[in-house]
């Protein structure tokens, strides 16, 4: 009954302690994207900015490739990755599409397929 008995849920990357340890530098970098300075510094030299926060080679490669699933596997928190997505001009539907292998329109259609309560939508 301990919280450390994990339920595995396919397609879900639980951001727990060990993942947070693994992803600390990556998330710290993305935390700086709250500020315009952080965003500009990243855009000026992405690889150097990754190095400044001690990202692992796998994390750095995933950042440079905009590979969201790999970033989750390497300890990224979706809330900090959202700030990275913001730099790329992606909204949460775009990010959903990237992770699920759908276009944004397909992803929106998937959302709609589960919908309820919209009379005018």
């Amino acid at each position, binding site marked *: 009954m301990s*919280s450390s008995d*994990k*339920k595995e*849920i*396919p*397609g*879900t*990357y*639980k*951001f*727990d*302690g060990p993942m*947070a340890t693994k992803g*600390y530098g990556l*998330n*710290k970098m*993305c*935390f700086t*994207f*709250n*500020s*315009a300075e952080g*965003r500009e510094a990243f855009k000026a030299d992405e690889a150097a900015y990754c190095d400044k926060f001690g990202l692992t080679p796998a994390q750095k490669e995933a950042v440079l490739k905009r590979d*969201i*699933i790999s970033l*989750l596997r390497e300890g990224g*928190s*979706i*809330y*900090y*990755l*959202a*700030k990275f*997505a*913001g*730099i790329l001009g992606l*909204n*949460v*539907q775009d*990010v*959903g599409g990237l*992770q*699920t*292998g759908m276009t944004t329109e397909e*992803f929106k259609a*998937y*959302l*709609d397929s*589960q*919908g*309820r*309560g*919209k*009379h*005018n*939508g």
Partner: protein
Amino acid sequence: MAKIIGGITTSHIPAIGIAMDRGLEDTDYWRDFFAGYPPVREWLNEQQPDIAIVFYNDHGLEMFLDKKPTFALGCAPQYENADEGWGIATIPPVTGETELSWHIANELIEHDFDPTICQDIKVDHGLTVPLSLMYPGHKYQHLKVIPVCINCERHPMPKPSRCYAFGQAIGRAVESFAGDQKVVVFGTGGLSHQLDGERAGFINADFDNECMDKLVSDPQALTKYSNDDLIEIGGAQAVELNMWLAMRGCLLGKVREVRRNYVAPISNTGAGMQLLINE
């Protein structure tokens, strides 16, 4: 004695704030969502609460992983909003309320809760979007706000049962406060959604409606879920139900639901809204 007059549940997703900034309330996408709010705004306008206790989560503006509270209680005279990195406009400062905040802090500690107590924190969209929704045009500065932040971002997260008990302790603290203030409580966030992984986009409208039913009549039933249960049934971010449970815990009287709205999808979520009167 201060009195909790009622509770309001609402989504707090950034897309709402952005839609309001762009004047999209009456578009096809948003019409049904925003249709839920005028009656709640009218109720707030009639009741004129002095203080709002807002349960929210911080999505990475203030409570970074370096030093992340399980529960955080605001005790500041004012709270600033700030750039969150992906384009939502910042809103004017939110007015705080230190006296009731410190009273709640004392009572929580006395009753074996261990909040982080905050004299200066920035608040993010989790708190500001609900305020903007209730008071369009940022007309919330007369209202004194007590932010209460619950960790929904990094496991381990407080259990639904603990969040409910935390809300009950806050409700009792308010009722023991020597004042005649009218207090409203907001439970924000939710409902079913998942932002991350190959399972992104998952919504469970049946579950959301069941949660809203149970929140009125049998909140204890919801406290039986673990956070892992919520993730499985409602998606990775369905743990935001914990803020609704904390809000519901504050309502110690007889609870009557007078308004409800539910629309899905709004952005990636099931968007619920309830107005609960505490009699």
